[in-house]
């Protein structure tokens, strides 16, 4: 299967996904208070693609909206 996929096509998607994860982690490291423990958010951001970081940005932070 992997020979048929041209990585040049998929690579931008992977890069965007990585940027999203990194930005979410930077934001997490700057926030003092989150809903739920921080280590849980780190796992969610790293393991669940796209939805993990989005969930963090929408409901993860307390206070600073």
């Amino acid at each position: 299967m992997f020979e048929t996929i041209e990585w040049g096509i998929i690579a931008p998607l992977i890069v965007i996904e990585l940027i999203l994860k990194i930005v979410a982690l930077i934001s997490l490291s700057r926030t003092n208070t989150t809903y739920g423990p921080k280590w849980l958010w780190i796992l969610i951001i790293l393991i669940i693609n796209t939805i993990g970081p989005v969930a963090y940005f929408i409901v993860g932070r307390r206070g600073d909206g």
Partner: protein
Amino acid sequence: MQWLTIFKRENLEAARNFKWVWVPLVFIILGVTDPLSTYYLPEILDSMGGLPEGATVDIPTPPPGEVLIMSLSQFNMLGVLIVVLMSMGTISGERKSGVAELVLVKPVHYHTYISAKWAGTLGIVAVSLFLGLLSSWYYTNLLIGDVAFGQFMQLFLFYGVWLALVVTFSLFFNTLFRSPGMVSFLTLAVVILISMVSNVLSHILTWSPGLMIPHLSTMLAEGSVPGELWAATSISLATIVILLIASTLVFRTKEMA
């Protein structure tokens, strides 16, 4: 310029909590999904297995314009959800935390505050939609077939009006309620209601903003802008103006109370 100051504060806020980064990125991911999955559909079916030996499946490749419409439908589900969730606290959250009072204690007009908020949110949404649809258009041209850039711009402008309407509804409910949860719930309810009612009564309500995507599909097929699309756009724009005025009035009375 007072308006510019408030508008800049809005954008600074959005940059600080990374809204300017994550919303466009998510829209790009949403936009890329449909061209890619359409292109790789045979491989995906192959790897799933379950087909008897020797069975041939002929999946006709949809016309390139249809793939862009599929991306728009994607924006219409998950994109709208993200727009609503992103904008649910824009005023209500600031009133809860007291930031709105900090701004409004200065001689700032209510309509300045509301319109700057609206423009700030709309800016993010417009840029995100543009980038998302652009990446969809790029991948469609690369993998499936040519779609003219002019058609892409038409799709962006017409569909953008509908998303602007969603943003305006969210802003309106923001002025009515202090709880972001309530705001997002009501906005989603209104959007879903508009889409459902106009789909059921699509023969009567041809001018409904909820039918934007079917009209756009017709536009791509026929190569000219159907009259219903102009009607839906005009109705949307008029609703946006009315909602903005209503938001200012509601906000004024709520703040005085």
